[in-house]
């Protein structure tokens, strides 16, 4: 009660006052906008769509399966599937989104759309300086604003991008190998059918023995 607790408090405060000039780690303010806090790699803010190559329309990975639209908790994604199809990175014919809108003012950056996407088409961005003065349309991002190249993704999330790219390269190779094997099988079948038609009726050879003969 003699006042020593107050003196202790005053000493502590004075130490912080002088320490903020001398010790580096006391003053933790980042002087925005001259300096910017460096965001860690895993940081996420709003989603964006990925495309491979140079053309956002042709290289867009999204196939409009609408899984992210269904799973999004606040329902901020709006997708309209296209009527025609185009080939994707393994060569299969897939649809594409004619309309892909995300309402960024509703999106809560929960990342569930990224988790459930089977095609690595949507990923989380790190931007936070998105303010606009257009109250109604300024925060509704269409496909054109959302599509960003794969190089951008590699820049902002290098570890995740390396893992995704590695997986996609492997899938592409596997698909190519399978396609080559299927093509070779079809060619062999066509050759054997043609030779059978040219040389008249032949004893029926089962497919397994014929395949063994070729390999």
């Amino acid at each position, binding site marked *: 009660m003699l006042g020593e607790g107050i003196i*202790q408090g005053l000493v502590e405060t004075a130490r912080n006052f002088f320490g903020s000039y001398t010790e580096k780690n006391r003053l933790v303010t980042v002087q925005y906008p001259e300096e910017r806090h460096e965001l*860690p790699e*895993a940081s996420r803010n709003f989603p964006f769509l990925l495309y491979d190559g140079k053309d956002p329309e042709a290289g867009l990975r999204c196939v409009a399966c609408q899984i992210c639209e269904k799973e999004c908790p606040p329902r901020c994604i709006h997708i309209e599937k296209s009527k025609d199809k185009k080939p994707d990175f393994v060569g299969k014919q897939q649809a594409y989104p004619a309309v892909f809108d995300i309402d960024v003012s509703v999106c809560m950056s929960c990342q569930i759309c990224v988790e459930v996407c089977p095609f690595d088409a949507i990923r989380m961005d790190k931007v936070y300086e998105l303010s606009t003065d257009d109250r109604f349309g300024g925060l509704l991002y269409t496909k054109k604003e959302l599509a960003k190249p794969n190089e951008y993704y590699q820049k902002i999330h290098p570890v995740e991008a390396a893992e995704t790219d590695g997986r996609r390269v492997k899938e592409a190779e596997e698909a190519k190998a399978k396609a080559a094997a299927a093509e070779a099988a079809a060619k062999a079948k066509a050759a054997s059918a043609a030779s059978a038609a040219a040389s008249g009726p032949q004893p029926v050879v089962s497919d397994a023995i014929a395949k063994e003969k070729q390999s």
Partner: protein
Amino acid sequence: MRDALLDRDVYEPEEGEIMEVSMGPHHPSTHGVFRMDVKLEGERVVKLKPVFGYLHRNHEKIAEHGAYLSAIPYTDRLDYLCSMTNNWGYVLAVEKLAGIAVPERAEYLRVIVAELTRFQNHAGLIGFLLQDMGASGTPLMYAFREREKILDLFESLSGARMMCNYMRFGGLRVDATKEWLDEVRALVGRLPQFVDEYEALLRANEILLARTQGTGVLPRELAINTGVTGPMLRASGVNYDIRKVDHYGIYDRFTFKVPLGEHGDVYDRYMMRLLEMRETLKLLEQALHDIPEGPVMDPKVRLRGLRPKAGEAYGRIESPKGELGFFLISDGSGNPYRYRVRPPSMINLTILEDMCVGENIADTVIILGSVDIVLGEVDR
């Protein structure tokens, strides 16, 4: 007049002017949009009515309309300062409902992030309490400096500082790298010094002692009858910590103590949280030492389109505010039939009038601060 239940003298207003003041939703010290209709006689409180609901956001109804997975980001926003423990409560309830097991490493990581959450919540709360007392933000800024370090750790782990959305049924969303664990170990090594500095700044301060000791007393029987939980209950002397009672997760593998108070006043509640901060650091050291390698997610669990069998489950955890419980009834479909949150802040708040009657209006704010409410949880 002596009130038998409160076991103390209750102030009887005489014939005088009763002034009704609304410490309204816009107030610097009510920890959110919260209103108290206070009837004053001079400076003494005669009657107090808490009015809340200004932040009601239909959380339970939204969760009942979406899938089980979609409710996890919404639970982040219940007690928005402690999103990891909110996630854990909900995920625990779903795991009980669907009978999902959790791998070892995931359990250890859950304990680590939950205890880090508890630490930053208590540090921030003590800072807020002192801010309400008029210490113009100095202890608050010191606490926030440490809290920022913990939030940076959360950001590098889960991607967001506060709305972490990290836990899933059957484990966690991503694994923690070795560098992250080393950073946590380094931080935990530095934190005891901060707790000592913090305690030294305030424990012997006569003004603090004079204002908080003997104010806002909550007797033991009343606390138990009202369903108060968390540090508030332990400050009144009741030994009830859900980590010790329920042994959820792997808490029974660690040794830690539970501090108990005697008087149940504001000073005891504030000291409870300070002492719990130290116990949290001990828990963290043990968990960081023992954490094994392994997967953090059971690969057979369906996250999308989880359809638990019909039944009900109640999962509860010791959140920094008290007992956070989630009651789920499933009817076999992909949406819960009934989803109910037991909010500790709201239930601790019901006793506010009994604690404040007879005190000065200046103390009302301190007593409210010591209850530790977050309006996101009170109103859901």
